[in-house]
């Protein structure tokens, strides 16, 4: 069966510090991968998605970046965190391929980030 891991579960970082959040998927190959952010009491905001190694699509221009160094690994980074980067970060995967838009997304447990 497939599983998705995210770490860390919670993170408190000072403004201006770097960020690296990691997401890995097990039990599937060539998945589509997604990074979302959810501010307190708000909806899901898609940040990045990837359909393959090294292929990243950005949805929202900001000081975050994403990378996919391996098929089942997705990393969210920032060089300098802002207060507004606080939120709940969720990684998700779906079956890849041309019909990927039809597929269910499976979410990780999330990382709660607080920037002070």
């Amino acid at each position: 069966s497939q599983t998705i891991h995210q770490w860390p579960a919670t993170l408190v970082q000072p403004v201006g510090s770097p960020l690296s959040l990691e997401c890995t998927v097990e039990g599937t190959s060539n998945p589509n991968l997604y990074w979302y952010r959810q501010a307190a009491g708000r909806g899901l905001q898609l940040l990045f998605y990837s359909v393959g190694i090294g292929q990243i699509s950005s949805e929202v221009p900001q000081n975050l970046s994403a990378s996919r160094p391996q098929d089942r690994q997705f990393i969210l980074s920032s060089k300098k965190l802002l207060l507004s980067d606080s939120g709940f970060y969720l990684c998700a995967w779906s079956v890849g391929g041309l019909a990927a838009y039809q597929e269910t997304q499976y979410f990780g447990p999330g990382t709660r980030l607080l920037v002070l």
Partner: protein
Amino acid sequence: SQKIEQNSEALNIQEGKTATLTCNYTNYSPAYLQWYRQDPGRGPVFLLLIRENEKEKRKERLKVTFDTTLKQSLFHITASQPADSATYLCARGGFQKLVFGTGTRLLVSP
């Protein structure tokens, strides 16, 4: 742009009643809509998918409808229980991604 709109106000109902949540979309009808459940501090969990050519889909106490004329999907939970309390998200398909609504919080009182 394609938008998904859900009632941002919480829905409060009594245990045993039927909860009905609404999802409205703009522009052209999506090929399908998906519904997810999200508990506080957790990632969303997939519940049901309904395709454009399906009027209704059922799964245990859950029922989803898709009305392309009204550009609306309704999500019903029959015989609701306090354990059904959560935020329910609607999503429409886009190229390689889903577009989520902001979700509606459901509170079921014993």
